[in-house]
């Protein structure tokens, strides 16, 4: 453990209001700790005062209505996996939760933390993007909804101000897609950080692709919604689709780099290949 304890403080918030007040006073939030405590253990957590929001019931639970699924920010990956509506209607989120870390991490890591930590390699953001998620953001003075697609501004930069928390993630339920595709290419099959991660949805008929949604992670400074690639597919008959053209378009939407886990070259090629796989799955489904 490399952190020097006197440089830190940690207060446990007793209520949401208490937490927001502490944020106003310059405290930073810590939830399940699966990201921040790694930084802490390795001596890389910024010094200062923190507020533990881990026990706040106001931020827990999954609430289902006819139109929306509202996921409390402190919902863990394990809780996401156990929810039937998530599993049946938002399988990409279910898959993302299943492939994150291992069981102990899934038990502790939260979806709100995964979003707020803003790692470009996080597993749930691509899934949230394709399902058109929005976020409810709160502070001691304000409460607002923002579209998730606008949340990530740049590498580790988000719209979240220092005095704000994500309260919940809102998913619209009019999400009827024939194909839900999620794939994480990690360094191994568990306890892995992704090299490339993709979520995609498709509606299609025998004749044509009606619409698709595609989002990728680990191949740019933030998670990316690939709208140009989506446009390429939308409304096209199968005979009009040249997958290589689609891959060309996709490459204009990402900016992968070499790092300790993989190479730019591999990331670009695999992202393209996964679009191919996505398209192959659509074709296969059609042929069945």
């Amino acid at each position, binding site marked *: *453990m*490399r*952190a*020097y*304890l*006197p*440089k830190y403080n940690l207060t446990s918030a007793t209520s949401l209001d208490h937490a927001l007040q502490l944020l106003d006073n310059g405290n930073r939030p810590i939830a399940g700790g699966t990201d921040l405590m*790694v930084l802490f253990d*390795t*001596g890389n957590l910024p010094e200062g005062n923190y507020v533990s929001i881990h026990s706040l019931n106001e931020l827990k639970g999954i609430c289902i209505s006819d139109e929306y699924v509202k996921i409390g920010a402190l919902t863990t990956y394990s809780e996401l996996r156990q929810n039937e509506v998530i599993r049946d209607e938002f399988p990409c989120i279910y898959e993302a939760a299943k492939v994150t870390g*291992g069981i102990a991490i899934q038990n502790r890591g939260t979806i709100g933390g995964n979003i707020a930590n803003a790692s470009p390699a996080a597993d749930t953001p691509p899934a949230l993007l394709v399902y058109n998620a929005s976020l409810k953001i709160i502070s001691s003075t304000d409460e607002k909804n923002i579209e998730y697609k606008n949340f990530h501004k740049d590498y580790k930069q988000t719209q979240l101000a220092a005095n704000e928390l994500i309260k919940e993630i809102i998913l619209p339920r009019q999400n009827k897609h024939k194909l839900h595709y999620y794939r994480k*290419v990690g*360094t*191994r*099959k*568990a*306890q*892995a*950080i992704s090299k*490339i991660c993709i979520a995609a949805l498709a509606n299609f008929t025998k004749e044509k692709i009606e619409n698709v949604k595609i989002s990728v992670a680990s191949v740019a400074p933030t998670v990316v919604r690939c709208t140009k690639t989506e446009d390429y597919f939308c409304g096209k008959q199968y005979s009009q689709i040249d997958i290589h053209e689609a891959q060309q378009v996709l490459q204009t939407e990402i900016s992968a780099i070499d790092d*300790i*886990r*993989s*190479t730019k*070259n*591999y990331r670009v*090629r*695999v992202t393209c*290949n*996964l679009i*191919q*796989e996505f398209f*192959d799955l659509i074709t296969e489904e059609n042929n069945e």
Partner: protein
Amino acid sequence: MNKKWVGRNVPRKEGVEKVTGKSKYVDDLTFPDMIYGITVRSKVPRGKIQKIHFAKHINWDEFTIVTAKDVPGENVVALIESDQPFLVDEEIRHPQEPILLLAHPDKSLLEEARRSIQIEVEPLAPVLSIEDSLNKKQIIYGEDNVIKEYLISKGNTDEVWTQAHKIICEKYQTGAQEQLYIENNGMIAIANEEEVTIWGSMQCPYYIHKALIPLFNLPAEKIRIVQTATGGGFGGKEEYPSIIAGHAALLARKAKKPVKLMYDRAEDMVATTKRHPSHTTHKIAVDENGKLLAIDIDFILDGGAYATLSAVVLSRGALHAVGPYECDNIRVRARAVATNRPPQGAFRGFGAPQSIFALERNLDLVAKEMNMCPVELRKRNFLKRGVENATGQMMEEDIRIDKVLDMALEKSDYFAKKKQFAIHNSQNNKTFKGIGLATFYHGAGFTGSGEVHLASIVGARLTAQGKVKILAASTEIGQGTNTIFSQIAADALGVSYDLIEIENPDTAKVPNSGPTVASRTCMIVGKLVESAVWGIRDTLQKSNLLQENYSEEQFISASKKYLEEFGELKMFVKYKPPAGIKWDDKNYRGAAYSAYAWAAYVAEVTIDKYTCEVSLDDFVAVQEVGEVVHPILAEGQIEGGVAQGIGYALYENIVWRDGQMANNQMTNYIMPTTLDAPSIRVFFTEPFTPGSVRKGIGELPLDGTAPAIISAVENATGQHICHAPLMPEDLMDCIEKGTK
């Protein structure tokens, strides 16, 4: 001798302590008044220390600070060569050299203090690759950067090339590998001017003992080394613990308090030894029937900045370079070269996995070029009884490695799978499937005259309860030393397993039975255990306290009577080389090992075409290891070794930056999890010679796993692959660009 315990799956001796969390590893121990230590290291690969800056915000008076100036004896880690200092005084030769040691009661403050020391260095141009070392870009070691060189020569390779039907020459590379024992290194020391005592995680108590005598300039009996429960070693706790023990003791001596020096994972990974990276140029000549005519091998290891064990790792690598194959004309030129990386060291297999990788891969290439089945090529060339191997050692055992291979082929359904996969690969556009194999042997015990020089000693003594206690420095590091020694001793005496106890390795209590390395514990030390307890029995019988035939009760009562009468009974025995084993160290000729274990491994893979990720679907490991003392432990050794081999082949890539490991975290250095390792199927064939010796098995599985897996990838993709680890990134290049 009636074998009642050997061959049975008795519960391991320290099993209950381990499953209840009661076993005491070094970090679980505290001593009154104990403080903590930490190591401040160089950050640059090469340079000269100019000045050390201590930041003002720390109250340094509270700290014990040790530098090279505080060394009371010789500032050198005694091992093979005396080239590595405990603490650098002036010249930095790799990026993780210990320069300064700190101790303080507050562990958290120590980390802050370490961050607050700046070492000003005048940088020198480093050598960071095998190529640069060979090309003498800078001279950093001796006259030519070569730490050690061997030549094994048989027949005349040069005359054969012109007559050959085919000559296959290729270059192969293997990467470094981290041992990644789950317990990090650590030591506790109590020391003063007169004596030093060490407790810690280790494989070789007497290596530490040897290293600390000159460091403190104290008589041998004033240095005491005690092994604590050790959470894995795999070679990684063979020689580096000597440095940590020395550091802890230097701090304790100056602080006049017990000092615990624990590495965390990041420090353990970045600073301690790894498997040597290798480059091999491999040239094989065959006749039209696939018979090996000549093999010419240029085998090079990256030894890092100091000699450490490189000479012996190189030796084992060279001696296994031609494997279990018959060939009349052989030349192996082996060199370990220096770089400004932290010294590489021992890791299970000890040079053999590197040279066997090149050999097995090149044999697959020969088979391909000859349009021959890899199985057939190997079968035509296996060593047999009455044939000499590369060093001219006559094979006297009735070797049936062909039968070992047949069993592996049958268990893996090799031929049917191969056909099936060929069809799959022509039809499926999402995955490739492949099956591959490797055949190999591993010599047990120290190389050549090593065991004679070690002259290991094992003792046994009677306890007050009339039980027999084994006295050996051979450590239990998970592999089952305590259990197999007890089984062997129980059968030797004809008493029950529970009547045998094992003394904890402690240089004040046990003789030097040699290091726990080289797959020698069961074979070499086990034999000595047998002799030692026979000594006890014979003494009881000669004293007329025990009949020739006796029951366990009679043995216990005889023991107690003996103790009543004479006070104590201890017997010590010393290693004697088996008759007819001769080794010429100068010319590298003769019997390099007194016994070999033989094996054939088959791997089955699926490769995802979209991502080039390789999954293992099946792994069959068949071996002949002589007598199996404890089937579950033996299987566990093979399974664990295969899993490490899987990592070596497919996952465990060390990213080097400026001469040091950049991915020194478990999240970025990728060892296999339960979802990555397949079910590993282990089989032991009947011994070739009934009643034959027990052979070492610890290292064997590392030799053949990686080549078998890469062979399967080659079978799946059609690409000849020349390196390991093979990351998906590399495989994608291999398939799409034809790189190797």
